[in-house]
């Protein structure tokens, strides 16, 4: 896994312990202390950002320099950081929050639904001192970014949605990505299931049902997002998409079998002025083509 989607980053680099970072956030108000945590190209730093008096605490990785960019991850990104984000960090200060309930972030059980999730992310942006970050999201993360952009319509500077969930077409159901066994998942997620990236992903510890701690972490990560998409990833977003005013790029792998291209057309129809960019690849296009995907995103955002 680590080779594909980036190293597991321990906290406490830069001479600042995790606890000290927590306390700085806890006592925040001062955006400077928080904002100062970004700004490094190279290994991302890990922060824990308490919201709502600690009822919700989000684990956030950050690295890079430049305009702020928040990246929301999908179901099947085991680590919150990846080579795709390394590329983006060359031009942006990238913040990658782990969704509440996924390992490292807590409090999902207190959230009532997707609306509450967007409120939490709005609160996170304030805690991080981000007035108008770019929002980028993949899969479920794309849905979270779009929901947030629809509710807080003046928040995002620009919006990039990589094969987002959130719409539902009866004639073309998106794949039941939360539950597929690993072999079927491989075929759904990757344009070429035999590619090195796909193979490395499939040999992740959490693909092994006998690795109980990894299985527990995998289930925990997926269940955190399941709350917002079970049993169908449609919470009425279609009725809110007209509210999005941020310039929007839809990025899709041209052989996406999990969330097929008809969804790209539907998104483009519903988000006024949205651009659509196709790249060779599948649902995991940002991990299949990290350079090309990051270049497309950078081009749109700059």
């Amino acid at each position, binding site marked *: 896994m680590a080779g594909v989607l980036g190293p597991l980053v321990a906290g406490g680099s830069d001479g600042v312990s995790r606890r000290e970072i927590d306390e700085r956030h806890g006592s925040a108000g001062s955006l400077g202390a928080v904002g100062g945590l970004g700004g490094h190209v190279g290994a991302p730093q890990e922060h824990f950002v308490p919201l709502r008096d600690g009822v919700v605490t989000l684990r956030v990785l950050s690295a890079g320099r430049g305009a702020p960019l928040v990246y929301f991850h999908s179901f099947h990104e085991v680590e919150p950081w990846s080579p795709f984000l390394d590329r983006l960090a060359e031009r942006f200060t990238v913040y990658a929050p782990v969704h509440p309930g996924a390992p490292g972030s807590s409090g999902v059980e207190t959230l009532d639904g997707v609306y509450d999730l967007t409120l939490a992310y709005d609160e996170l942006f304030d805690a991080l001192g981000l007035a108008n970050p770019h929002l980028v999201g993949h899969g479920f993360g794309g849905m979270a970014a779009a929901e947030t952009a629809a509710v807080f319509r003046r928040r995002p500077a620009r919006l990039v949605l990589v094969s987002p969930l959130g719409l539902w077409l009866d004639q073309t159901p998106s794949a039941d990505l939360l539950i*597929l066994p690993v072999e079927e998942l491989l075929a759904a997620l990757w344009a070429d299931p035999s590619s090195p990236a796909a193979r490395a992903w499939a040999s992740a510890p959490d693909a092994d049902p006998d690795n*109980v701690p990894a*299985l527990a972490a*995998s*289930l925990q990560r997926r269940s*955190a997002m*399941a709350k917002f998409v*079970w*049993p169908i990833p449609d919470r009425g977003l279609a009725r809110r998409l007209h509210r999005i005013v941020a310039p929007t790029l839809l990025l899709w792998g041209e052989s996406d079998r999990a969330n097929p291209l008809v969804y790209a057309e539907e998104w483009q129809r519903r988000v006024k002025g949205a651009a659509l960019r196709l790249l060779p690849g599948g649902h995991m296009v940002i991990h299949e083509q990290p350079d090309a995907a990051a270049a497309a995103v950078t081009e749109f955002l700059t």
Partner: protein
Amino acid sequence: MKICMFHLMPYRFLPPDFENRYRSVWVDVPHELYDAQKTHGLYNEFLDELEFAERQGFDGLCVNEHHNNAYGLMPSPNLMAAALTRRTSKAAIVVLGNSLAAYNPPIRVAEEFAMLDVLSGGRLVAGFPVGTPMDMNFAYGIDPSTVRDRYNEAHDLVIQAWTRPDVFAFNGRYTQARYVNIWPQPLQKPHPPVWIPGGGSLETFEWTAKRDYVYCYLSYYGYKRGKGIMDSFWQTIEGLGVEDNPYRAGFLQLVCVADTDAEAEKLYFPHVHYFYQKCLNVWEGFAEPPGYRTPATIRAGVRAQFGAKAKKIRAELNWAKYMENGYVIAGSPATVRDQLLDCVKSLRIGHLMVLMQIGSMPKDLTLRNIELFAREVMPHVRDVWPAYSDRWWPAGATA
């Protein structure tokens, strides 16, 4: 000891190559395999079997709830229980049960169970399973991570609806009702005994014991595998300092009785095999939806009973292995007596539930199984716990 006949009401006519052609008997089993006319016959023979069991002296009759399921044709066990109330008069009607989180509002459960209790003259046992992932998360579409929370809230609402003297408002996270006031109220006071079917999760042991309910371990894998689960149940009971009355526990065991061990194999093997190969053929994607099991239970290593691995193990089963593993207790009356005594004593079971109609077993064979069991086995296992009283038996059942 109390002995109940448990019925799953399986569809008996799945094609011979079912488990190779279809990925799952549950959730997405195609209903092109289903014949309504045949099912009309099945429902009536299944009810005949349960009624016959009462006449043969069984203490209770158990029905349960499944959805989208070709081995459990009872999406509404309450309908079957209602039919049984009119054709029986002594046996406990054990509904195991209503999956609380699936009812919206769960007031419906309080009402229907109250109706059954009144209709049966106080013979109802109220079972509250959390519900399987296949039923709750896939057939009924409930988010796995909220099932337990919904269940807990619904449980509190139902118990209050049965016991509070006033008309009250219930302001829950999942259910809001301004006027809770069910008519009829149950006949048994303060309410029908509550049994909780569980799959071995640690949280449920403690939850059940603290509320003084019966815990029922319903497994299709028999008493030898059930021993570990029940041992940890009794450890929990000991740890809580609660009386270790065997009637706190219920257990399901598959049982087949014949005149001889050899005859048992000949008569029952095809039907037992149908059950394990076809009825338990559940696609692994349905076995573990994210969020259904708590992280603590996953880390405790309790495995799901379904999935690819379980299928592989099942495919290698033959009669000798069914016997050796204790999945099925089968044979002559003497063989069954000995093993059943071992089962109830070693697991400390006060409420034994026996599955007597298994898989494709036709009515005449099921009746024979019931009759032989009642005549040759039941009298020898009934008096296992003379020192204990059953505080969890419905007041109106005369057993």
